[in-house]
């Protein structure tokens, strides 16, 4: 089995290396890939959409359909992860660990014992990691707001610099994941619950498709943002720029929520009680 695999891989690699002789030379400006449609994008993006970052304008305007259905794929992956892993029937763990906050004593409550309420006195802690991590929690509490502001900046400034909905959404999701790792999964879920994340997943896709539908109601093609000029009160070129921003916000919401959903379900194996 192993020999067959090695031979197969070696043969395929040799074949591909042989074929690589026919590729255009490295960095050729007149290669087939960069001589048909992409010069149009490069030369017309500023006069069509007034967005200097060509990647953003192609992503959300010229090829908006593509990005919309990529967002739908991400949404579907998040839903699939929930369906695969989520355990809705709450299985009570045999033992739980609690920390008595005023004294710092860790209590282990065996099966059948009475669990204390989550009050100011007692705090439930993960059974895999008992020690205090004050440095980690304080640092995270300080940097998470800045990470989130940076994520919003990345979404909003995607027109002029690298960035956009996908990157900003992932960074925002990563800040929530960081919170869930530094504190615990339960306090993260308390702040950003399961219903909210599932709602945001759907809302992101809905914003994207809704902007397209509004364009259609005004008599233009689906996702032709110049129709938004009347609503926004700007000229048709700026309307395309603003339409791109709206769509990016939808993408950002969907991606952020899906990243959080994936982490919640993978880290707790669907039980949503104890995470990393």
């Amino acid at each position: 089995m192993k020999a067959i695999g090695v031979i197969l891989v070696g043969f395929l690699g040799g074949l591909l290396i042989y074929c690589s002789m026919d590729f255009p030379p490295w960095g050729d400006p007149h290669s087939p890939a960069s001589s048909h449609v992409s010069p149009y994008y490069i030369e017309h993006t500023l006069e069509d959409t007034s967005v200097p970052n060509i990647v953003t304008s192609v992503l959300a305007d010229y090829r908006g359909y593509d990005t919309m259905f990529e967002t739908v794929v991400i949404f579907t992956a998040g839903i699939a992860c929930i369906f695969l892993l989520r355990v809705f029937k709450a299985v009570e763990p045999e033992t739980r660990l609690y920390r008595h906050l005023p004294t710092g004593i860790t209590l282990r409550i065996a099966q059948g014992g009475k669990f204390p309420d989550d009050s100011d006195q007692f705090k439930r802690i993960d059974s895999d990691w008992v020690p205090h991590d004050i440095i980690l929690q304080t640092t995270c509490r300080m940097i998470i707001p800045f990470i989130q502001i940076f994520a919003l900046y990345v979404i909003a400034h995607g027109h002029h610099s690298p960035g956009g909905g996908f990157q900003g959404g992932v960074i925002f999701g990563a800040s929530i994941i960081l919170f869930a790792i530094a504190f615990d999964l339960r306090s993260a879920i308390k702040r950003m619950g399961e219903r909210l994340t599932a709602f945001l997943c759907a809302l992101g896709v809905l914003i994207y498709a809704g902007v397209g539908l509004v364009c259609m109601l005004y008599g233009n093609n689906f996702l032709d943002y110049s129709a938004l000029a009347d609503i926004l009160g700007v000229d048709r070129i700026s309307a395309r720029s603003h339409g791109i921003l709206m769509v990016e916000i939808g993408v950002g919401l969907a991606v952020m929520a899906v990243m959080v959903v994936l982490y919640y379900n993978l880290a707790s194996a669907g039980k949503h009680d104890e995470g990393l």
Partner: protein
Amino acid sequence: MIWQLDLIILMIVIVLGIGALTVKDLLSAAVLFGAYSFMMCLLWAIMGAVDVAFTEASVGAGVSTVLFVAAVFRTSRRTKD
């Protein structure tokens, strides 16, 4: 494109990719894969694909490593090959 830098990073990428596949501990494999993703991000930045590099830095080196570590934490670290 600076070809010396490109060549060095290509070498590192291959070493990290092979390392992630051969190491006997799945947690180490996850961390090596994160390093691989980050080197890939540098490669894209060298090529001038700044948006792709940004995406890979946040997605590949950030979130996917966390997802791998979470999955290894919920399954086992042991592997036979």
